[in-house]
């Protein structure tokens, strides 16, 4: 049985005059015990999707199940079984760490002791501050507390909406390590992020743009789907270089990427031709080399193809 299934989910916001189509027929399935990533820019519809799956929002169209239960009909059962960590810190800031944990444990009819094993690794890091008010914690600690609270009732599915937005690089890495260990406990995790580099940490990812899914695959699979040759190009005057690249006929797309420009070629074997073309344009310190595509390249490529 699939942990999460979505079938043609649609959601529209706004009144008659101006409507925003947040989700345009989303369908996918998440296996049990999988870390599934929803990757997409701001406004892609990630949060709407999460709110529908956590029974906070009704879809306009389509059906979805979580743990085999319908999100509309069986919302009461789902609420007992899922953990949700919204993008914004939404615990009680005026209650202490310990009080927040206790509160969420008791309203799920359990206690911290009962599921301590599950949250131990995360909670033990903030336990020294158990008498501090949640509002006074640092960003990374808030996030750990939120995750602990979302886990305290041992949910079978965990929804994490942009858990790493606004968190420093070290904490982000730590966080993903924690998710991996939770996965080992058999918890299905649906996580959204605007960061392309985090996609590689998921078992499978869905690339979402403007309310529709562009591709679903494992991170490696998504990169494999990227068949065009990719070149990295660098020269002294990067702005002129980009303008010239855009005029080149053999390219499908060019965009800045770190200290290089990435050039997606229409076909293989044009590398030397491109180099000659650029040299004619008198670029200083020109460097052209083959590059391995990352998720970000795939995303940009898919986005332009739409």
């Amino acid at each position, binding site marked *: 049985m699939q942990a999460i299934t979505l079938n043609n989910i649609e959601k529209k916001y706004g009144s008659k005059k101006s409507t925003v189509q947040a989700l345009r027929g989303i369908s996918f399935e998440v296996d049990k015990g999988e870390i599934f990533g929803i990757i997409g820019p701001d406004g892609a519809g990630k949060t709407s999707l999460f709110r529908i799956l956590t*029974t*906070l929002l009704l879809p306009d169209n389509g059906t979805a199940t979580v743990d085999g239960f319908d999100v509309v009909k069986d919302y009461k059962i789902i*609420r007992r079984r899922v953990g*949700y960590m919204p993008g914004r810190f939404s615990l009680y800031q*005026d209650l202490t760490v310990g009080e927040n944990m206790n509160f*969420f444990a008791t309203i799920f009819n359990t206690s911290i002791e009962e599921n301590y094993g599950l949250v131990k690794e995360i909670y033990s890091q903030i336990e020294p501050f158990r008498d501090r008010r949640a509002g006074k914690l640092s960003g990374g600690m808030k996030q750990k507390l939120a995750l602990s609270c979302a886990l305290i009732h041992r949910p079978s599915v965990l929804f994490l909406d942009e858990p790493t937005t606004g968190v420093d690089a070290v904490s982000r890495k730590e966080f993903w390590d924690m998710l991996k260990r939770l996965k080992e406990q058999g918890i299905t995790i649906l996580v959204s992020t605007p960061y392309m580099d985090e996609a590689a940490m998921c078992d499978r990812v869905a690339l979402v743009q403007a309310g529709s899914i562009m591709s679903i695959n494992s991170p490696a699979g998504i990169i494999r789907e990227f068949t065009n040759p990719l070149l990295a190009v660098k020269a002294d005057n990067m702005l002129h270089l980009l303008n010239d690249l855009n005029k080149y006929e053999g390219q499908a797309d060019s965009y800045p990427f770190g200290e290089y420009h990435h050039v997606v070629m229409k076909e293989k074997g044009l590398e030397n031709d491109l180099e000659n073309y650029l040299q004619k344009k008198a670029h200083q310190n020109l460097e052209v080399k083959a590059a391995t595509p990352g998720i970000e390249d795939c995303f940009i490529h898919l986005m332009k193809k739409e």
Partner: protein
Amino acid sequence: MRTLRFLLQKEFRQIFRDPSILRVIFIMPVFQLLILPWAADYEVKNIQLSVVDHDHSNYSRRLIGKITSSGYFKLEDYNNSYPNALYDIEKDKADLILEIPAFFEKNLVNQNESTLFMAINAINGVKANLGGAYLGSIIQDYNREIRLKWIQFPRFSPETTIEIESSNWYNPQMNYKYFMVPGILVILVTLVGSFLASLNIVKEKEIGTIEQINVTPVKKYQFILGKLIPFWILGLTILSIGLLIARLAYGIIPSGSFLTIYVFAAVYLLAVLGLGLLISTYTSTQQQAMLISFFLMMIFILLGGLYTSIDSMPVWAQWITKFNPVTYFIEVMRMVILKGSGLGDIKRHLLIVLGFAVFLNGWAVVSYRKRA
């Protein structure tokens, strides 16, 4: 039940941890009750009087003496030119001009009658109205005194006069504090009951904690009760503090029973809590809730019979007051405290407010369901 108990525990923890809310809840009523009744006094005192005396006689001096000794008037200016006095009014130095014509005494003695002229600054309507009335009655009194002196026994009074003696029932001293303190107390209870409760719920929406609660098995009714019960208790606490202050500071001891007051207050709080809940379902930020609350509070106070008598309002306004729960509580408080009314006497009020409670809470719960 266990869930509800924990929700309540959490709510009380949060309330008692927020010093600004605590201040609002406990210090505000103390201050308002200690200060407002002194300011909200209908009796107009210190009316500034400018006298234009063209007569300078014994009688005119005695009239002025009588007016100033009444305690209501302050003789601001005494001169003999009406334009000068009018200038005082323009400068806001005088509220009232009394012009005593030349030969006032002579006419009074010889022709048995004389005239006086009064000009009133009507910018402050209440002051003008009452000032004119006070002055009128003082002059009438003065008139009678003179006549009394002229009557020679055994001659009968040449004309029949009707004299009115009134006695003030339920508030023999006409002490305005007895009248204002219960009313202000009602406003305070309303504030805590409806607006503090609505702000509290909207706050959960604003910081997003309501989302977190919504994905838990906590049921809607548990969440709503968890919000209403603490403020219901707080409302009754404020009422108790208020009644205590009324007793200590003003010596107001209800003629009726405390039971009547508390029974009514308990039902009344259900109604205003319903209103608070309703406001919270239609707003998404504390700012919006605050603005709506201010708007409603103005209407509640001005159309609730706290400062102005409802009977003197136009009929359409009287109809509005019928839909104002504050009206009923103010009336009941005054009835119980001053008149000693019992539960039987306030049965109509109690039923109407119960109706409010059912209607407002029902509406709030329906719209809460739709929106969440």
